[in-house]
């Protein structure tokens, strides 16, 4: 099972839309796919019309006291399941802190799912915390949606620094530009600044589009209502490029 996590220290950068659309596309291509909505706000669960609630409580789930498989919900799409968010996820750091080896806890509880899915997409909450560090340990790569503004690029540098300091295992860090509006000079200029970030960006950019915002109103992945739209095609290209990076061992990986 390949584990990807959409992550950014900053919120509102298109993390959840990326997780939802890429997971949907992966399942469409025949991969048994699971999304874990690890953000207490529960946006991914909302998009799939699934109640953001874990029976027994999110804390117990992360402690490994619950049968994970029994908490998974099928979405409306074949081959795509979701492990819902739970409001108690906001206290996960405290729970993890109580565990024996907190950084390995997420990997440990995900183990039984390895045979059931080809891809796990974790939609993380913004901010650096014990939870996100535990996700870094479990994941094969972080997909980092980045809005082309100087502030976003700064948070990407912060993330790289944090990863360096945490000494986590080999982990891919694949940033890409998201919500790009080429009409805005700030966006045009900052995209060029990417050259100053010491790691490569995926070439595909996700354009800013009100269609992506409509996902919230329609509560469905973008492709179900705007299959041929620009952002939909961009997500397809993004998934292809991620696959290519893995196949060819491209992109930046922490030393591990």
């Amino acid at each position, binding site marked *: 099972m390949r584990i990807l996590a959409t992550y950014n220290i900053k919120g509102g950068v298109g993390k959840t839309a990326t997780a939802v659309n890429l997971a949907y596309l992966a399942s469409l291509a025949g991969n048994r796919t699971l999304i874990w909505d690890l953000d207490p706000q529960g946006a991914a669960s909302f998009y799939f019309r699934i109640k953001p609630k874990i029976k027994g409580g999110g804390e117990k789930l992360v402690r490994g006291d619950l049968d994970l498989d029994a908490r998974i919900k099928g979405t*409306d799409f*074949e081959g795509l399941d979701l492990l819902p968010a739970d409001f108690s996820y906001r206290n996960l750091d405290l729970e993890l802190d109580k565990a024996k080896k907190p950084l390995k806890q997420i990997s440990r509880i995900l183990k039984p799912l390895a045979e059931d899915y080809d891809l796990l997409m974790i939609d993380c909450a913004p901010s650096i915390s014990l939870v996100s560090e535990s996700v870094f340990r479990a994941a094969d790569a972080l997909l980092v949606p980045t809005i082309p503004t100087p502030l976003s690029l700064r948070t990407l540098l912060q993330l790289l620094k944090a990863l360096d300091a945490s000494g986590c295992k080999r982990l891919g860090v694949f940033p890409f530009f998201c919500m790009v509006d080429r009409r805005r000079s700030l966006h045009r200029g900052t995209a060029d600044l990417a050259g100053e970030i010491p790691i490569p960006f995926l070439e595909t950019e996700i354009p800013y589009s009100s269609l992506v915002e409509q996902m919230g109103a329609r*509560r469905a992945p973008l492709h179900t209502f705007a299959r041929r739209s620009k952002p939909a095609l961009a997500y397809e290209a993004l998934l292809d490029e991620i696959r290519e990076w893995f196949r060819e061992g491209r992109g930046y990986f922490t030393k591990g």
Partner: protein
Amino acid sequence: MSVFVLKSGASADEVLKGLGEVHSLSVGRRAWETLTYRDTFDWRLHRGGVTLTTSGAGRNTRLAATPPHGGTLRARAPKMPAFASEIPPGPLQEIVHLLAGTRRLLHKGKARWLTLPAAVLNEDEKTVARICFREGTALPADSGDPIEMPIRLEIIPIKGYTKEERSVRRFIRKNFDLEEEHRSEVAAVFAALGVHPGDYTSSFRLELDPTLSAIEASRRVHEKLFGSMLANQEGLLADWDMEFLHDFRVAIRRARSAASQLKDVFPPIAVEDLRRELRWLGRKTGPARDMDVYLFRIPGYRESLPEGADKDLEPLVRLLREKKKKELGMLRRCLRSARHRRLVKDWAVFIDGRKLGEDPGPEAHRPIAAVASERIWQAFEKVIRKGGDIGPQTPAKALHRLRLDCKKLRYLISFFRSLYPAEELDSITQELKSLQKHLGEFNDLQVQQEALRRFAEELMETKRGPPATLLAMGQLLGQLEAAQAGERAMFHQHFSQFARPANRKRFRALFGPRPSAPPDREEESA
């Protein structure tokens, strides 16, 4: 998923109307599709638990496969794929290729379906269960009359919403006239069409009663092999894939072996005629099969050559393709000849059995268990004797003969495997297989070298082989020679493993002569 069939009179609309009164439903559009169910001749996908369907045509060819772990894999292809290798890369191609290998994906059945899907929704309009009506008509291959099948109602649970699915199922069962359906959709189509999945396998399987007379048991062995030969003839003539000719040849070889190893069971003249004719047919099939095998080896040859030199083999490939075409043409003529027709007729009479009783062989009426054990034991002893005579300087021919003796032993074991305990038989068969594999490789390397030399001469004589091609073939010859020398050096190790006392003991326990009964005590005391 639970599946029901609607009993006569009930319609999909009626069920939806009733269900819609208690559940919120989203009803989809009715859609027609014609599905062709595909599998290899020997049902490799079916055996692997996979159903493959194709629909559409030309550029709009669609494929769907259901793997054993559930779900459906889908793919599109620019034309109807004849082989797994022609399916565009992806999970569907991977699973089909894994099971079907190089065998052609044949049309096994066809059906037209009218599908009406519906989703049961909760208060958030989230799908919590699916239902699907499938109204099917099986379409016979010989353009016979379409066969209407009962409407299938599938209730598909959504993970994590079992309670909701249960409630839908309970409601439908309670309010409508249905019957539970345990067959899969493809099984229902095949049943309607009279197709029996798994009805052909290239391995020999025959259940025999140990008390059966040797002549009857041997007749059944021939009957099975005759069936196998005929089953492969159509695919061989059409050249669907190379396995048809292979299986056809194996059936002939096994039958020859059955005729000669059990010759004392059958009427002497009849069996002699059959052996002669089978030998003739076997020889006729050889050259075309050889070309298949050489062409199959080309990718391996290309890989073993240095980069850039792999293209130098093109003239050889062209030569082989021409020869294959020519040899297949000759074989087709042979299979349409009067002599072949006579062989088929005579063999059919032979296995019909009525004439077998006229002049039975001396062993005809002994129980098959005794005859089989004697023959297998003799064949085993021959392998041990001949293998033991082979030393480092013995010519390659002796190894070739030993390979044939091993084959005869293996065939005898396979004909009569139902008479012996399966577990023990499997373990000695493994031992024999491993010796056969080694001898096969040795012989193969020898044959390849001889063939490459022959082809090189032909390419030179006909001025079709540029120096680069001949050099590449020379390189291959060198590699084959070295590999063969390596195999030769390993012979003693392989043979000693097979002939070790523990293995002989196992063969003896299963097939060896039974010690004669001890004399009666009373007689002894008298």
